[in-house]
């Protein structure tokens, strides 16, 4: 079964894959900090979508699509146009290179993220494993 990106089902699938990943659990064992991923509208997708991913000590306690009127406060927010997210999830854009060139915009403690490069890579690897239906 394929999951539409962006959607509640898609981000929940990511949360489950992270919980099943030994490599993520070990590389993020000290990590504390939830993310909101914002897919901004572009030519390929007309709406803004907000995906909330909870991350704490190598596991994900939950995930959901959220909306501006009930947005949880998180330590990190990453914004990018829909098509840029697609490149990241397809493995065509390294997220750290994306941040270094301003294609992905991170709000939060950048240095904290840079201390966990392997965990970031594992999240992207898990994204690539999700059967994704692109609108």
């Amino acid at each position, binding site marked *: 079964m394929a999951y539409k990106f962006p959607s509640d089902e898609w981000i929940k699938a990511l949360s489950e894959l992270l919980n099943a990943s030994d*490599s993520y659990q*070990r590389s993020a064992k000290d990590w504390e900090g939830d993310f909101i991923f914002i897919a901004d509208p572009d030519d390929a997708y007309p709406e803004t979508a907000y995906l909330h991913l909870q991350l704490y000590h190598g596991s994900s306690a939950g995930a959901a699509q959220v909306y501006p009127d009930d947005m949880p406060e998180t330590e990190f927010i990453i914004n990018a146009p829909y098509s840029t997210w697609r490149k990241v999830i397809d493995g065509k854009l390294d997220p750290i290179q994306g941040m270094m060139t301003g294609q992905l915009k991170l709000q939060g403690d950048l240095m904290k993220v840079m201390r966990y490069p*392997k965990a970031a*890579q594992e999240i992207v690897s898990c994204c690539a494993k999700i059967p994704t239906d692109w609108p």
Partner: protein
Amino acid sequence: MWHFVSPRIVFGESALSSLEEISMSRALVVTDQNLVQIGLVEQVLDQIKKAGCEVLVFDEVEPDPTLAAVELGKKAANDFQPDWIIGLGGGSPMDTSKAIWVLYERPDLIPAEINPFIHLGLREKSRLITIPTTSGTGADVTWAIVLTDSENNRKMGLGNRENAADIALVDPALASGMPPRLTADTGLDALTHAVEGFICTWHTDITDGLCLNAAREIFNYLPIAYEASQSDNPRQERYQQAREKMHNAATSAGLGFGNAMASLAHAMGHVLGSVFHIPHGRAVGLCLPYTIEFAARGDGTSRIATLARILDIRAPKNEIGEKFSSKLRDLASAVGNPLSLEELGLEKKDFEDQLDKLVDDAFNDTQIITSPRCPSFEELEKIFQYVYQGHPIDF
């Protein structure tokens, strides 16, 4: 989209003399006491003084420079108010000079905040010149800053494209007196930059040629430069040529990997350096044959094969990693470097006591994510064990 960053590079014989053409009024020279003692700092000061410039020498940089040294240098800069900062030495003084420069310009920052994602707004008070006195680090042309967090025994990879030097003076005479061990270690560091800059997943069309040519030059000239370092007559033309080729190759490799990335040998070498205080070039050069063998058993084969062709290594595709690694080991042996941690003299118990930390810290090193084949935790632990024993990678 990507960027290629480079200082203006003045290179070759007498490059140092171009210092007198630079308009400067107050120069802070960041260096180490060894370079003061052997007279290299004096040579540079002579050139600066010809420009009628006031100079302050900050010579408190030590190998594996610490945050404390940067803090002292920042204070010296704030007191002296230079319009130029000059990083003179190997990687440690040059990286320290970059950090001092950033903190002098941006007193609101702490070193840990120097990262690639922010706008620094440098060059309001001063600019930076780098002058390498070893042929290896490439720190003269890269924007990376490696400092040691001595509280946690960990290297900190910092830097921002803006903090690349304005001018790099690459004068081979300054490195021509390097002793044998330093010649070998720094040469293998440059080779690791060239190889990893080419095979890493962030390689680019612009950096590939720099890395390939540097690798070829280092294979050709490092053994001669090493011979020169042991010779009673190091001024022979072939020795001087080898020294110059190595000096240029180190800078080329620095431009190559500095605008791409390094890879697994650097991730492993950084932690070996911070935990066991193994010199950087020796540590990364020691790991490189093993990480090449590991990459060649995964997706890294085609670029390793390209690199091997440039070096005249002929072998079937399934043997290319092994043949290339064998050539790397031959070069390391030719310049008297160890091929395993055991041979380097590291006690087995000390190694085993730190193995978990080595693996965990290597996984938190930014260079690991650009490996052509990224190991799992179990694989990385095994690679470290093979590096200890000197056992070629077979998985």
